[in-house]
């Protein structure tokens, strides 16, 4: 039908379309987000939107201040990192340097499997097991608290952190270690003074991507965080992160209303935060590549 030159051209163009399609989707998402959400910033003002803690979108007069929701997301994410980073980095070090190869081949895929567990299952676990447990030991009126969400998100961010941090540590050239050991440093000193500093920006990438996972998680926090729009001054009280606000309210918000725009406004803020995370993660990754290649 066609000669091979034309065929090749067609195939090339089809592949080009697929390659650009994800960029197309991203652009589409950004356009929709800003088109639907931007009006709220001019209606209530960016300062009011970000720093007022009055989230009463369906009242008359309405309140569209997301400060408590933003603070809820940030506090829960920081808490998740406090839990996930020590565990994650320690297990990455163990897996890459101490564990024999044959166990490594079992342990690493097992940890990565944690990432494949659907978030609603984490939510169920947090709601029915962890929540009641925390309620009992702290004598709380309810077990659905910021702490419950932190622990669950910490567990959920673990596989990202372990896997990427382990890759970073393993990527440190073997001759760095050999040189350090040859100079008389013991294994602990080699680890702390040579390997970790070299891998540090790679580990930072891992942590930032773990944070991105935690701040964007929706189902689990909707189920375990309690959903009270309080300022998170006490982690043993319920919180309402941005993601669960969108998920809970979008279904019933009339399309095009101020409430609807405000929810898209929250989505814009969330999108910008994850964008910043990704940019930082990428910068750290570039630095790491340079360091390892010995420049």
């Amino acid at each position: 039908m066609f000669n091979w030159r034309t065929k090749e051209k067609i195939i090339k163009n089809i592949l080009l379309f697929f390659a650009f399609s994800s960029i197309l989707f991203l652009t589409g998402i950004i356009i929709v987000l800003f088109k639907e959400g931007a009006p709220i910033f001019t209606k209530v003002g960016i300062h009011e939107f970000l720093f007022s803690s009055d989230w009463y979108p369906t009242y008359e007069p309405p309140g569209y201040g997301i400060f408590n929701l933003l603070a809820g997301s940030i506090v829960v994410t920081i808490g998740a990192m406090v839990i996930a980073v020590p565990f994650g980095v320690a297990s990455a070090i163990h897996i890459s340097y101490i564990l024999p190869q044959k166990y490594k081949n079992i342990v690493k895929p097992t940890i990565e499997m944690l990432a494949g567990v659907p978030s609603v299952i984490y939510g169920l676990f947090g709601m029915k097991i962890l929540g009641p447990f925390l309620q009992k030991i702290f004598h709380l009126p309810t077990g659905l608290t910021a702490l419950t969400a932190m622990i669950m998100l910490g567990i959920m961010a673990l596989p990202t952190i372990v896997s990427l941090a382990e890759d970073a540590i393993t990527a440190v050239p073997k001759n760095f270690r050999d040189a350090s050991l040859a100079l008389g440093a013991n294994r602990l000193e080699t680890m702390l003074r040579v390997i970790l500093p070299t891998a540090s920006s790679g580990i930072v990438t891992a942590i930032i991507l773990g944070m991105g996972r935690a701040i964007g998680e929706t189902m689990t926090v909707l189920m375990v965080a309690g959903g009270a729009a309080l300022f998170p001054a006490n982690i043993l009280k319920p919180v309402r992160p941005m993601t669960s606000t969108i998920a809970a309210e979008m279904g019933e918000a009339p399309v095009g209303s101020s409430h609807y725009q405000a929810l898209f406004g929250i989505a814009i803020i969330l999108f910008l935060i994850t964008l910043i995370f990704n940019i930082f993660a990428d910068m750290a990754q570039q630095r790491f590549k340079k360091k390892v290649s010995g420049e």
Partner: protein
Amino acid sequence: MKKINLLFTVLALLVLVVAPVSVLAQETLTIQGSSTVLPIAQKAAEVYMEKNSSVDISVRGGGSGNGIAALIDGAVDIADASRFVKQTEVEAAVGNGIYPVPHRVAMDGIAVVINPANSVTELSLEDLMNIYTGKVTNWSEFGGPDQEIVVISRDSSSGTFEVFNELVLEGNRLTQGALLQASNGAVAGVIADTEGAIGYVGLGYLSDSLKAVKVSGVLPSNATVASGEYPIARPLFMFTNGWPEGLTSQFINFILSAEGQKIVKEQGFVPLH
């Protein structure tokens, strides 16, 4: 040649699949709106379609606001709503040449529920207002145990919240310490697990793991809701554009018939008669 044959086969198959549907289903009816009314509309549509094979009824949820907005746009024939139409919506509708007509199809009672371990049995509307605005935070104020009240509410965009807000809070702001849950089922689940909790659910969600309290001396039940004695009750509506005609009118009449009201009851709501 082979390709052309294949093409014809595919086309023939398509015709076979599509034709019966388009020939048989001459009349269509679209319904959208309140997730509270959804089970009634859904079940009624199924039963109605079983009896009248020439009718195609599609039912969607999305909330009272979305349903009425769709009716205003002329996108649906019937809008389900768990509240009455708002003044702003009427204005928008009239501007579009649409005249929303309400049809009361069922009654829905909102039961105030607590954990069965709680000894409190009765609260007044004023007590409920004090609890939900955060003025009173301990059960001992109502003769219960010395325990913090865990206030559970539906998220503020749900129809159930809107009615509770109107009948109990009278527009006063809900305490920010309230735990917002996204569904009746979630509210019931949290209350069953939490000793100090108070919440509110549709009458259909009452079970042994929840304890309904008397509000102003009246226990919520089908009888007290239908008679209007129980104070936190609301009618459920279907809105049509103008006085309904044809299939729309037949469907509304079906829901209002004895058989339709039986469906209402089966779905956990209070029938009109």
